[in-house]
């Protein structure tokens, strides 16, 4: 409710400022529009920016700053007050303090005065309950005291929020209004503001990458700084038993590579041959139907493939091999992952083959080569770097795939080369360690970040290498 009122105020200010800017500039021009450097619309927009932008920034940022400040203040004051009130055993629970403070602010002025100003802390719980709050009737005195000061701060913070936002709107409007002159370069002002906004938006990608690297790295360091863990064990041990603090990642690495390997064996020949057919043989009419169809298929959510592996492929394989592999197997996960990757590879490879200049093909035909000789001896060698890149990107995708393996690969960390046995992967263990019941700070949970960092580095290496190859390839033929 609070935010929406501010939003409405800001929107009204925006509209008012815009029309004021338009009118003022038109009036200053006195009927001769050519006197204006910028159009009245630009003057209006610039005035609207001056009026709304600072106020909007403040309105958005203040609640964050204020709540952080208030929490720090309450936590800082806690120690002294417990001592003063002789309740050393009371533990600071910010959540309770916040609930009580909210209740106090809903209390009528007279009651809250009794509780806070006259320090009748013991009856606070009952009064709040009587007012319809869901709260324990017995509240510890320091909690109520902290809540009282928090409630006062919050009231003040709301006043500041509204007051300063309103002040900024007025100040911005007046300052902007007074700046309007016929010679004012309003358009440049507007454009520079927009440009700054665009530039800030483009840093989002960097911030995301930075966020990934820093958070994952930070938690990984937290994991390895535990005395139960060591980097050498993580990297080289073959035992994965988190319950007993044995975090060897080798079985997971093996499972990941095993399943991805099966997937690549299925997907690479089928995907590449499909791409060859699409790029070199298919009739144009076939192409216009099949290519979008493949792209749609490439967008099918992986949960669908996972479900398929779990419900259809797993039982089917266990019937064929008459072995108890219903709990998931490397083969069923790998096969289905292969099916998932086929459209991905064929789509990328199709683009790569199409990028090979037509002149090379014509040259080859001119020498009397058949179509297949041209493809095998001219087009594919020319496209090889790009195709390598496509296959590597697909491999990176297979390694990072989650839902298929979570549903169909099983969770046994075995170092087995039998594709009918269950194996497990990085992603399966990340999911199971983080959706378990362990505390966030326990090594059992933190190990997920170490696994994620390993996974991130593996896929990043593949991606950088593959994208580099593909970019060089494209530039080569442009």
């Amino acid at each position: 409710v609070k935010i929406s009122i501010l939003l409405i105020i800001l929107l009204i200010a925006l509209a008012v400022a815009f029309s004021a800017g338009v009118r003022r500039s038109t009036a200053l021009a006195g009927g001769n529009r050519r006197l204006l450097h910028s159009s009245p619309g630009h003057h209006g927009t610039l005035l609207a920016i001056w009026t709304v932008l600072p106020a909007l920034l403040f309105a958005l940022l203040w609640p964050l700053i204020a709540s952080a400040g208030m929490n720090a203040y309450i936590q800082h004051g806690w120690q002294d007050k417990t001592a003063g009130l002789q309740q050393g055993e009371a533990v600071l629970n910010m959540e309770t303090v916040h609930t009580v403070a909210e209740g106090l602010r809903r209390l009528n002025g007279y009651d809250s005065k009794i509780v806070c100003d006259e320090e009748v802390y013991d009856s606070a719980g009952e009064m709040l309950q009587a007012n319809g709050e869901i709260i324990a009737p017995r509240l510890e005195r320091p909690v109520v005291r902290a809540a009282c000061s928090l409630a006062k701060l919050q009231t003040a913070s709301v006043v500041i929020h509204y007051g300063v936002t309103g002040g900024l709107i007025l100040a911005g409007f007046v300052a902007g209004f007074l700046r309007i002159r016929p010679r004012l370069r309003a358009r440049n002002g507007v454009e520079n503001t927009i440009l700054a906004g665009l530039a800030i938006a483009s840093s989002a990608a960097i911030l995301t990458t930075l966020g990934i690297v820093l958070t994952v790295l930070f938690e990984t360091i937290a994991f390895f700084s535990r005395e139960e863990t060591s980097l050498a064990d993580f990297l080289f041990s073959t035992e994965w038993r988190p319950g007993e603090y044995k975090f060897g990642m080798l079985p997971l690495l093996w499972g990941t590579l095993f399943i991805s390997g099966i997937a690549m064996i299925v997907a690479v020949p089928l995907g590449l041959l499909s791409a060859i057919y699409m790029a070199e043989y298919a009739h144009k009419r076939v192409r216009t139907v099949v290519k979008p169809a493949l792209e749609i298929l490439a967008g099918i959510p992986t949960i669908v493939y996972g479900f398929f592996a779990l419900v259809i492929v797993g039982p089917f394989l266990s019937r064929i091999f008459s072995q108890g592999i219903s709990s998931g197997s490397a083969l069923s996960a790998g096969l289905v992952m292969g099916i998932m990757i086929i459209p991905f590879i064929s789509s990328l490879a199709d683009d790569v083959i199409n990028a090979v200049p037509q002149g090379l093909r014509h040259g080859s035909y001119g020498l009397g080569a058949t179509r297949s000789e041209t493809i095998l001896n001219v087009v594919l060698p020319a496209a090889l770097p790009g195709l390598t890149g496509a296959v590597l990107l697909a491999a990176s995708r297979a390694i990072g795939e989650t839902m298929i393996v979570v549903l169909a690969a099983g969770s046994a960390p075995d170092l087995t080369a039998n594709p009918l046995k269950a194996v497990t992967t990085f992603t399966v263990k990340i999911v199971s360690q983080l959706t378990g019941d362990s505390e966030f700070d326990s090594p059992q949970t933190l190990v997920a970040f170490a696994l994620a960092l390993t996974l991130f580095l593996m896929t990043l290496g593949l991606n950088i290498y593959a994208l580099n190859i593909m970019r060089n390839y494209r530039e080569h033929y442009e």
Partner: protein
Amino acid sequence: MTAAAESMSGIQAPADRKAKAAERLRKRHAREARLKLSAFAAISISLTLLAVLVGAIVYKGLPGFKQTYVRLDVIFYPHAFFTPEETRASAKLSESHIVNAKYMKLARLALYSALNSTPKVQPKIPESCAEPDTALEKDKAVCARVNALLSRNADTDLLREIRNAPGLAGHTKSVWLLASGEVDAYEKGDIDLRVPETRRKLKDQQVNWIKALETAPDQRIKMRFNTGLFTFSDSSQPESAGLAVAITGSFFMMLTVLLLAVPLGIAAAIYLQEFAPENAFTGFIEVNINNLAAVPSIVFGLLGLAIFVTFADLPRSAPLTGGLVLSLMTLPTIMIATRTALISVPGSIREAALGVGASKMQSVFHHVVPLAMPGILTGTVIGVARALGETAPLLMIGMVAFVYRMPAGPLDSSTALPVAAFMWSKEPGPEFMERAAAATMVLLGLMFALSVIAALLRHRFERKW
């Protein structure tokens, strides 16, 4: 060497040479046919596999859109709503009466009278079964069996009937009530009667009752379209488990992505493509975006867990949190699509605009961006579709909770469509399995609709320069 070879072949008789050439040509053409055939086989196999995938999901999921209902003539006895004193005082039906009435008892009594009215049902079911706690000890086994025919959530149907027409109290109405999951499974042929009775969920006596209802003069048991799939929340009982919460949650998440990732991604791409100076830093951003698009989605989930949940203290399993994570994930996709669309607008457009005195900003926003809009929209729709189907990052931020209450806003606990499919597929039994497949079909249908929109956009507005 070559000269020697030529003179060698020159010695051979012309007929022999021709035959050899023909033989070579035949081999070359055979090789040609082989490559073409294997390429065609590959694409056929790929498309067949994908068709099998979709077909299997549909085959498994179609039964999930049907649900077994039982038609019962429910007598809304006044004593189910009023205490004896209130009846004497002829009190009016208030909200607390409506909420606290014993609907389950009414439904059960109606079931018994329907069963007892057919000659097949012997022995007759005692009415005391309607409240199993007070039933006679010898009847308890029978009571448990007969009560298991109706869904545990059948009472909500009756509650709704009374809500819609409070005048019903004291009258009789014929109502279609949810049958239990076991009855539903039997009707769909998922229960094998050859299995010994002790290992079956549905006992012989129950099967007889169902048959009695089926052969009743006015068919009392029937499969109808499963509206509950879209209107119910999640439930531990398969027959009353629905996707309403999941669909709402996914809707809020898509809204977040549309409001956050789309404008941000488009703005960033416009800056990088049209305004940014070409230097090492923008080169770095570009490499960065391409790599970000290939980072496994689960890593984004960990980022969301560490930043949004642990650090910024946003609620777990809230659509806003999930939407933020999905936004970060979709951002690179939208950026890349937008840049591709901008690149395809020829430079002459920009130069012409600048030539007639437009500023750089005007040339971009008045001319280049509108021309690139179809491509940008297509990329956006594809990005949003991908975000809609993404599961792994949502598992990381705790969107796996069992949520019964409908989320009223983006900060309430919720689930998502793909997560609901995931959760149900892990439940035992065919009832949940077919619902998981049905949820998957709903998801696929939405994705397909979005893809068609994207394709139409591209087809309608695409322009070749």
